[in-house]
């Protein structure tokens, strides 16, 4: 069984409190740029949470030339910041380009599920939005969520505004 974060796109309000929690838990600060979970809203109202799905393919791990990405005993992804050189190969390898570089230190950031109880999920449930939840399953369908976020955004936009959403 693998733990991963399920994203219910339609429930996400775009409040980004998950970003606050993530950066606080990992860096002790409110710092959007280092949040392992991110909200993309380049079209207003079309809100796309971006977070690692702990896919079974582990593209990032397989692609890392430094062996800096590893799985712990619960099969959760981690980045060894000592080994990582910030080369960005994992970003290209991930079909959804989810890993992100630390803006000040030279290593990649990938969701580590806060060791099993992700702070982002906790706050999302706590505030009653329920857009994120932790699921524990080997369901291979989670791999299907690994898609370019711009494609996801376009689909969500069409669902929300219709295919003539860009015209006024």
């Amino acid at each position, binding site marked *: 069984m693998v733990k991963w974060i399920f994203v219910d796109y339609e*429930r996400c*309000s*775009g*409040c*980004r*409190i998950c970003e*606050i929690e993530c*950066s*606080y838990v990992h*860096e*002790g*600060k*409110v*710092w*959007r*740029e*280092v949040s392992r979970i*991110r*909200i*993309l*809203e*380049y*079209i*207003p*109202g079309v*809100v796309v949470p*971006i977070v690692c799905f702990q896919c079974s393919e582990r593209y990032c791990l397989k692609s890392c030339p430094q062996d800096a990405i590893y799985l712990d005993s619960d099969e959760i992804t981690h980045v060894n910041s000592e080994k990582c050189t910030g080369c*960005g190969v994992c*970003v*290209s390898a991930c079909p*959804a*380009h*989810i*890993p*992100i*570089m630390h*803006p*000040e230190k030279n290593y990649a950031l990938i969701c580590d599920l806060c060791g099993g109880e992700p702070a982002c999920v906790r*706050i999302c449930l*706590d*505030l*009653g*939005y329920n857009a994120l939840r932790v699921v524990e399953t080997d369901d291979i369908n989670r791999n299907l969520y690994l898609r*370019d*976020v711009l494609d996801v955004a376009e689909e969500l936009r069409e669902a*929300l*505004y*219709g295919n*003539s*959403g*860009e*015209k*006024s």
Partner: protein
Amino acid sequence: MTYGYAGSILVVDLSKDKITEMSIDEEILRIYLGGRGLGAYVLLKELGASWENIDPLGPENLLLVLTGPLVGYYPGIKVVITGKSPQSNGVIGSTLSSEIGLELRSAGYDGIVVKGRSKDPVYIYVENDSVEIRSAEKYWGMTGRKLYETLSRELLNEAIRKSKGSAVRETPMIYIGPAGENLVRTASVMSKWFHAAGYGGYGAVMGSKNLKAIAVRGKGPLPRVYDPVKVRTLTRLIQKELSSKFSLRYWGTGHGGYSVGYRFSSEPIRNWQEEWHDNREISIVNFERRIWKRRFWGDFGCPVTCMKVSVVKKCGSVYVTDAPDYELQAYMGTNLGIFKAEDIAYLSAIVDDFGLCGIQTGNLLGFVAELYEKGILTEEDLGFSVRWGDTEAFKRLIEMIVRREGIGDILAEGTFRAALRISSMKSMNVLDYAVQVKGIAVGAHGVRSGLDYQQFSYAASVQGGDHTSAPSEPFDRGEVFATFADSAVICLFTVSKKYMWDFTRAVTGFEITQESWTKYSARAILSIQRVLLLLGGPDIYWDPRVHDDIPKRFYEPLPSGPKKGEAASRDTVRKTLIEYYKFLGWDELGLPTDETLEALGLRKLLEPLVKKIRKRLES
């Protein structure tokens, strides 16, 4: 280092193509905090001496985009847009929801001051230390929605490119639509299609500077705070408190379209000729069932999410707006004799897209329709008939205003100035039909029923008809409190009376309490705003003996509803206003006394200006 502040304000001079920074003394921050308060102080320092001669739409005006120490930490997000207002000729602290507040602080700035005027259309791009003035030639003329299809997407591509291809967040921006470009005085500074800093007319100020947009990416953490543990604890408590608010969370303010009229008899109907209705066509149920496509939509850090996303289709096109909120349900609806949810959302989407203030524009359209009803403006003047409830006629008028076509050129000056022009055009006084105070259309809350705003509220406000800055009794609430929310820069819908003062102290380390705010900071801010408002100029000057009043309409008895026959009384307005002025340390003209100026440490800066005003009033 001062806690809670980035410590620097970016100064972009568009005439000289020059970028510098300035810092603000801690002593000043202690009093004014940020946002509206700091904006008023900076404007006084920079422009006070020649205030009356400064054309709000000239290059000498400043456009300020300011955050406050609570931005990014306190739940909900706002920035304040200010400068010399082309509506009131004073200072309006106009608030806008936008993540650029947070991004600015993460980039190392507490705000931006824009000076001068660019020769060609530009936008400002900020990414930490890298600040660029970029060409906006290809974006000029674009509506909000077009701008998001182009600029927002291009900025995202740039951000992705700069981050080794990572899927990153968008680059937040604030911008103007065609209304601001065409110097329409009711133009807003916009964000995210539907969020607007409407009061003040700062969209036109941006337009006058040839500035289309400001986009910001901040890569650092928020500025550090005085007591991080306490901030964290209080954040949790406030989030919990706010997330349990039922009506704002589920309905937004949109439930008011029916209930403010029916229950409080204070909703503008047909240019305020009535304030009561029992028309259930405008009920929240119709909005939520028929047009809401997203029930919970929030900006950074907001656990309330009063915003909703509405979509309506008309003639094969898709129109998108937010709830609409109560103000726009009233001003794009009832005030125009329109009660149908789809039509209200349709007009709201149009004003949002053009970058117009929905309140100011709806007030103006209602004014025009009443003049048409009374036979003062005719089809010859307008080009077509403008009858109550005629959505398409109002849409045509909106387009004429944005393009300054025909009568639209006069209407683009806003309700007050348009009323002056039409009065001289028709050789009669039409100001009596203009429901505005000191150049600012009044918000959609009436005073006659006694169940909503107080009679003196708009008369005494330093922001005229602005319903978010309305004085009320007891005097330490209303406008006095609004100066705090707008200077710490928090959203009025995320206020936690229980925790916010503790929160402010934990962020800044300043010994600030509600009492100290009321006694000192609020008075200082309001005194500056009041003096600059009365200095006014160059085209409009206010006389407190004439203009410290509510619109004439509010003295007419309500014609319908349970409060039928109720009206405001001149004695009540006058009496409360003078008590309020006394509370603030002002004389009966609403000018700060010498003792007040001394106590506030503003003698040097304000005394010569007060003298100037007295001299003008005596002559």
